[in-house]
């Protein structure tokens, strides 16, 4: 982690004079964060202990009742299970594929310069647009799998088969995640001193050996960063894809926690239920990130 070189008394050595200037420079963003993050989060905590009527008036304190109801609801646990499965599969694939692409691009294969550019393009497409496109691609009657349906009618139909629908969301999320991961991992690979790889090669290490023993260990900071971002991203950013592709269905097959909160709070005006789930989701994300930062102890930043 970053070491603190300057102690409190040595602040004056900085670019600006006096604490007020610093405070004023930081204030705008702090105010924004307070207004648009801490206030809503605080309100969600508050509402999770109340039964809240949408138009206000007559909200009543119910203690932990909202939590016990949500936590005893099998539908909630199913959504949590799906979220965890999604959190494992989608980042795993998104980072795995990006890593393969980055290693290939880094080796300076033919056309790798062009590939570097092309792989980044999808980053410019918004999640919702990706969803719309994938709905067409996976259309059971017109899409790429329609020949399968011609042979075995009804085998592929994400409109009614939950597993098929879940798979389409995973594919879209992975496709969406590859460009950014690719950029991060490729820049990490290129920052590895050439001489390490070259001297390993002179010592007779083959390309697999060099990847496993030199490139991957030196890439751990970038791998860690992509994992953290992907984990959080799959929890909160899959929303756009789900909303455009499946609206949580068929059945509940693609109702992840984040989508359930949206539906309960914004479509059904169940403010207390949605607030309770928001608090639980926040706790879940915080726990996941803390676990990851325990992992970070094994990450070496020095080269």
């Amino acid at each position, binding site marked *: 982690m970053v070491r603190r070189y300057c102690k409190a008394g040595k602040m004056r050595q900085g670019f600006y004079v006096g604490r007020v200037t610093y405070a004023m420079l930081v204030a705008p963003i702090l105010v924004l964060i307070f207004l648009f993050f801490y206030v809503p989060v605080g309100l969600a905590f508050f509402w999770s202990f109340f039964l809240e009527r949408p138009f*206000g008036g*007559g909200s009543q304190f119910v203690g932990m009742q909202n939590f016990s109801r949500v936590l005893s609801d099998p539908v909630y646990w199913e959504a949590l299970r799906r979220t965890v499965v999604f959190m494992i599969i989608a980042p795993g694939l998104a980072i795995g594929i990006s890593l393969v692409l980055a290693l290939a691009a880094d080796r300076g294969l033919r056309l790798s310069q062009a590939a570097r550019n092309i792989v980044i393009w999808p980053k410019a497409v918004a999640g919702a647009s990706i969803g719309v496109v994938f709905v067409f691609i996976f259309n059971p*009657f017109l899409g790429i799998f329609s020949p399968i349906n011609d042979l075995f009618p009804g085998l592929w139909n994400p409109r009614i088969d939950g597993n098929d629908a879940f798979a389409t969301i995973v594919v879209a999320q992975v496709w969406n995640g590859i460009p950014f991961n690719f950029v991060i991992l490729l820049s990490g690979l290129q920052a590895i001193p050439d001489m390490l790889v070259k001297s390993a090669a002179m010592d007779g290490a083959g390309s697999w050996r060099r990847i496993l023993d030199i490139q991957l260990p030196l890439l751990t900071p970038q791998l860690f960063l992509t994992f953290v971002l992907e984990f959080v991203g799959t929890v909160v950013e899959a929303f756009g894809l789900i909303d455009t592709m499946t609206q949580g269905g*068929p*059945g509940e097959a693609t*109702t992840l926690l984040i989508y359930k909160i949206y539906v*309960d709070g914004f479509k*059904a*005006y*169940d403010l207390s239920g949605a607030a309770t789930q928001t608090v639980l989701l926040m706790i879940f994300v915080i726990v996941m990130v803390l676990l990851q930062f325990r992992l970070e102890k094994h990450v070496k930043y020095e080269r």
Partner: protein
Amino acid sequence: MKISFLAALALALGAAVPAANAAEIEFWYGNTGRVEEAIQNACEAFNAAEDTHSITCVGHGGYEAGMQKAIAAYRTGEHPVLIQFFDAGTLDLMLSGAVLSVEAIMPEVAWDDYIGGARSYYETSTGELYSQPYNGSTMIFYANMEMLGEVGVTDIPETYKGVVEVARRLKDNGHACPVLQRVHPWFSLEQFSARHGEAIASNNNGYGGLDAEYTFNTGLVAEHLVNIAAWREEGLFRLPADTPAGRNGFNAGECAMLETSSAAYGGALAALGDAVGIGFAPIYEGYERRNTLIGGASIWVMKDHEDASYDAARAFLNFVREHDQQIAFTRHTGYVPVTNAALETLKASDMADEPEFATADIGVASLNMPGDANSRGIRLGFYVQFRDVFIQEVTMALNGEQEIQAALDNAAARGNELLRRFEQTYQGVELP
């Protein structure tokens, strides 16, 4: 000096008197596309005809988005005087304490003239109309008469027995999608139960109090869904998921018959032309036909505004009720007239035979069928959430993951939990 000051004051006051009675109000609505155009036309016409008041009509891109913004606005005291809201949220607004009933603020209006199915949906258990029906639709039955003609059928079937017979003939003739059927509860539960006079929940679908419980899982609905599953196996009924064009299967010419909203008529007419035939939604034999429920939305009056704003709101509500305004709205959108008088005016005019008005007659007739205590409407808490629950459970059943009966039992049990929580949320509030 003093005199001129007083004169100026008097002048200013004199000028201010009419201004104090004039009001600029806002009306929030959710529709888009052609319906939005029709609403904006009505607003422009109102502003052109009115010399004291004016209205600004603000679209929010959807009923739900409009409601969310209204909730936020009401909590901060920035809410509009008039807001349009859709059928399923009626109970939320009735209990919100944020609205005034239209009958209370406009006792002089002949509310009895509103068509039966529309009145009953938006009125209290004691018959007080809370909101003014605006864009009203209902469920009707569509048939592609060319396809039916190919198998020698010239009349649109009125019972499920008849529908199935026609569907078998179509299937034997090689037709891939005789009937397109959706499982959304608006189709397979609400409109279905209403026109059969069956309750979906106790207390007459909740009109009698917040302690209602779902009962549909033991009634005719269970039988109907089992039938739909069997008919789907047989290849007579198709879900949107089973057919390439999905929900547009009828307009795309894939499916021959469909029950859906009268508001879909414009699209069907544009796609299929003269081949479109419409009739009453089918019923099972042995049942007396009851009214179908109104779909679409109504206009609500919100609390905490100036008297002048309510004058403006009254003027606007009266304006959109005028016969030529209703007829213009119907022509532009395919929604039905919502007062009997407007329908009579339409029928008496030479416009009655124009294709744009074909649904008005049959839609209003369906809404005006004799009702009973179970065909008034739905007054159940967290109903929007329940709709999702119903879709989830029934979809899983139709995908073979559980039995139909188990799906309905689950949906009813989960729905009852929602009802109990809703009851607790509104503890101490009397259902009007």
